[in-house]
């Protein structure tokens, strides 16, 4: 049997078995022969389908490009957020020059901008989750195109991860997330 990939090994095995079948065939042997021929055709079809998919492109360009784009998104939002925060700090420094009412209004507006700027952290954490999912897909595609052999086990938490690491899930989707009120109620239930 050749050393090649598992699909090649299956094809070779089918050919080898077919080669041993000669002379008059029993009904069972004929049925087996039919099954083996079907299996051989199936393997050939699967190979050409995988070739047609050009899955190598996924790992060679698509996934690295996608993760680079996402990294750039995080970088751009961080730069823009810092610009916004610079501007807010300038505005706050002007408060002392304003009358009390205007200073209060400006302070309130700046606070709302600070609160909104936390989007950079939340979106950054969400994008990090997507990047890690893409990397898991990349590893699996590499395993499938390399051979039909064993797939890497799902990307998960390390066995020796601390409780803090195991529970670091990142932001939940809005429909699943607990509100501050939910969390306050949960904490109060311990008292």
């Amino acid at each position: 049997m050749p050393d090649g990939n598992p699909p090649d090994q299956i094809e070779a095995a089918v050919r080898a078995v077919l080669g041993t079948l000669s002379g008059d065939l029993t009904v069972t042997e004929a049925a087996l022969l039919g099954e083996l021929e079907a299996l051989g055709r199936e393997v050939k079809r699967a190979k050409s389908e995988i070739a047609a998919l050009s899955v190598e492109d996924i790992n060679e360009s698509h996934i690295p490009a996608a993760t680079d784009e996402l990294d750039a998104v995080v970088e751009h939002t961080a730069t823009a957020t810092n610009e916004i925060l610079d501007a807010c700090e300038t505005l706050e420094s002007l408060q002392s020059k304003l009358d009390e009412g205007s200073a209060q209004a400006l302070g309130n507006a700046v606070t709302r901008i600070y609160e909104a700027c936390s989007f950079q952290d939340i979106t950054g954490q969400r994008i990090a989750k997507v990047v890690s999912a893409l990397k898991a897909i990349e590893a699996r595609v590499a395993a499938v195109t390399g051979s039909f052999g064993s797939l890497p086990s799902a990307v998960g938490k390390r066995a020796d991860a601390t409780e803090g690491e195991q529970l670091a899930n990142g932001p939940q989707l809005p429909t699943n997330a607990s509100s501050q009120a939910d969390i306050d109620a949960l904490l109060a239930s311990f008292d």
Partner: protein
Amino acid sequence: MDKNLNVLIVDDYKTMLRIIRNLLKQLEFDNVEEASDGQEALSKLRTGNFGLVISDWNMAPMTGLDLLKEVRADARLKDTPFIMITAESKTENVVAAKQAGVSNYIVKPFNAETLRGKIEKVLGNA
């Protein structure tokens, strides 16, 4: 409430550190130091004198929960008020933080009023 106490804010996102620092400034807390993960925070806590820790959860190499456990296990630091500010909003996270001795828990995104209220509650009880 002593607003001159030293506050340590811990987050791996620089923008979040800056936001929290600015919100604390509005609340007249001017003595604020920063750390970008649990390990850096722990060494600052051990060498400094902090009256309040405000920490994120999801950081490497040491998470906020692991930092909290270290703080509660340290004879000198164990009574330091510790507020978690995190996007981790699952019940299991809140329960784990509570069991580890968190003083209060704020979910991101949060508003300035929530931060003020929790600080008052925590320092009032300190």
